[in-house]
């Protein structure tokens, strides 16, 4: 009997040890990736990296300004498309009665859209924009990214609104404020931290996306400011440079990876700040 207890305790400790070791093993790839990105990327990073466009094949140096600007333009544009759209669809879901079939279908659609592989979104954006316009454009890329952002914004809006006490809505209605005005002027501002967090998360989701941009924004070695023209983006540049045989372009790709990861980290930090600073005390 005593032995039995001893054995079971040993087994329990052993289990804990195995679990701990296995879980700590995920740090190996993380450290390895970060080591690669940082040690190689840091070599690319200098003033030129942020102010120049990529140099010609074979020449060393050059920068990724075109991709940084392109990512900025496209993400910005996709926010402009997806946020008002997703926000109001989220309001609709919050507002719909529990037994609404329309709301049920909408929730299902949002789930489905969220699970569409990004490459498929890229294909459809190609069919919708690139084929009729007969050219690649940043606009088509932004639209693809906007579709990817949409579900997250809809969901976070709905969930955030549900957490706000109903009494707030009633207080506004009791002042004779119409229904939708109440939703937009009282409920949305009260949930601003949750909604912004959802927005930031969705930016984090799309900023590193390559697949939807390959056949839409396509990429461009030049600094482009016209959204109807092909445009580069950081993940696209990483892909194109990484698949090229040139060592100098590989260096650029590592550098771009480094700033992309840095940017993702900044977004995570931003989310934590938003939650702290913008939290509306109810």
């Amino acid at each position, binding site marked *: 009997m005593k032995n039995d207890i001893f054995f079971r305790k040993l087994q329990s400790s052993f289990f804990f040890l195995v679990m701990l070791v296995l879980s700590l093993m995920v740090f190996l790839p993380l450290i390895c990736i970060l080591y690669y990105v940082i040690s190689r990327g840091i070599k690319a990073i200098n003033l030129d990296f942020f102010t120049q466009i990529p140099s010609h094949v074979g020449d060393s140096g050059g920068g990724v300004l075109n991709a940084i600007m392109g990512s900025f333009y496209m993400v910005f544009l996709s926010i402009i498309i997806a946020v008002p759209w997703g926000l109001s669809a989220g309001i609709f879901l919050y507002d719909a*009665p529990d037994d609404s079939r329309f709301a049920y279908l909408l929730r299902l659609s949002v789930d489905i859209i969220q699970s569409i592989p990004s490459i498929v979104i890229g294909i459809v954006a190609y069919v919708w924009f690139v084929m009729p316009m007969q050219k690649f454009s940043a606009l088509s890329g932004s639209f693809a990214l906007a579709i990817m952002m949409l579900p997250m914004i809809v969901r976070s809006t709905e969930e955030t609104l549900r957490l706000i*006490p109903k*009494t*707030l809505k*009633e*207080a*506004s*209605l*009791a*002042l*004779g*404020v*119409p229904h939708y*005005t*109440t939703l937009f*002027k*009282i409920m949305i*501002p*009260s949930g*601003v931290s949750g909604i912004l967090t959802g927005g930031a998360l969705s930016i984090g989701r799309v900023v590193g996306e390559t697949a939807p941009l390959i056949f839409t924004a396509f990429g461009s070695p030049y600094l482009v400011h016209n959204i109807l023209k092909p445009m580069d983006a950081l993940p696209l540049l990483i892909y194109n440079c990484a698949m090229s045989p040139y060592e100098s372009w590989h260096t650029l790709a590592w550098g771009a990876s480094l700033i992309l990861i840095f940017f993702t980290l900044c977004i995570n930090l931003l989310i934590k700040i938003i939650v702290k600073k913008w939290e*509306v*005390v*109810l």
Partner: protein
Amino acid sequence: MSNKILDIKNLNAFYQNHQILHDVTLNFFSNKATAIMGPSGCGKTTFIRCINRMHELDPKAKVTGEIILHNQNTLDMDSILVRRKIGMVFQRANPFPTMSIYDNVLAGYKLNGIKKSRDEKDEIVQDSLEKAGLWHEVKDFLHRKGTLLSGGQQQRLCIARSLAMKTEILLLDEPTSALDPYATANIEELIEELKKDVTIIIVTHNMSQAARVTDYTAFLYEGKLIEFGETEKLFTVPKHKMTEEYLAGRFG
């Protein structure tokens, strides 16, 4: 008797198939305070929510009968206009968390898109806060968030928010049930003052509160109006046996 302001005839309220109020008929008199009393779940909240058309917010709810304000049946009016005339204060204070004290008082104007000059706004804010007995406590930090105030202060801020809309009638749903005795006393004193400007309908659980601050009392039981009359009479010589039992604390 003073003049009627609100005349309620055969009010029935439903939620889905369930009838909550049965044929309630009574009057409210201007510049008087009326208590709505009765055991929990008897329909007090539903009753006052019918008066400012909040009950029908839920699509499953229905109201029939007449609620006549200035010769007009409010049930036929635009619910939004009714709500601007009849203010409401809730069980739990609910100042808008995104707004300052100043903006909370003006919320009805801001949210309804009614423009006012700076001077007019200042005047409304000061006037409403004075009437709500809050001015001296908050006049030096009007631009702080309303949610930073104490519970009693928040409740008075909500009263000021309703008063700012120049409402004629103020509905209060157990306004002191979440407050400490000191803040409760403050609100009770305030009600006495408020009667100069508005008609008060207050739901309360607290019999001594009803006795202290109201002129009339309505006693509801299971959605039916059992007895209505001057508070003093109703408390001293109740006509109905059920009222007597309730007042004696035998149920509720």
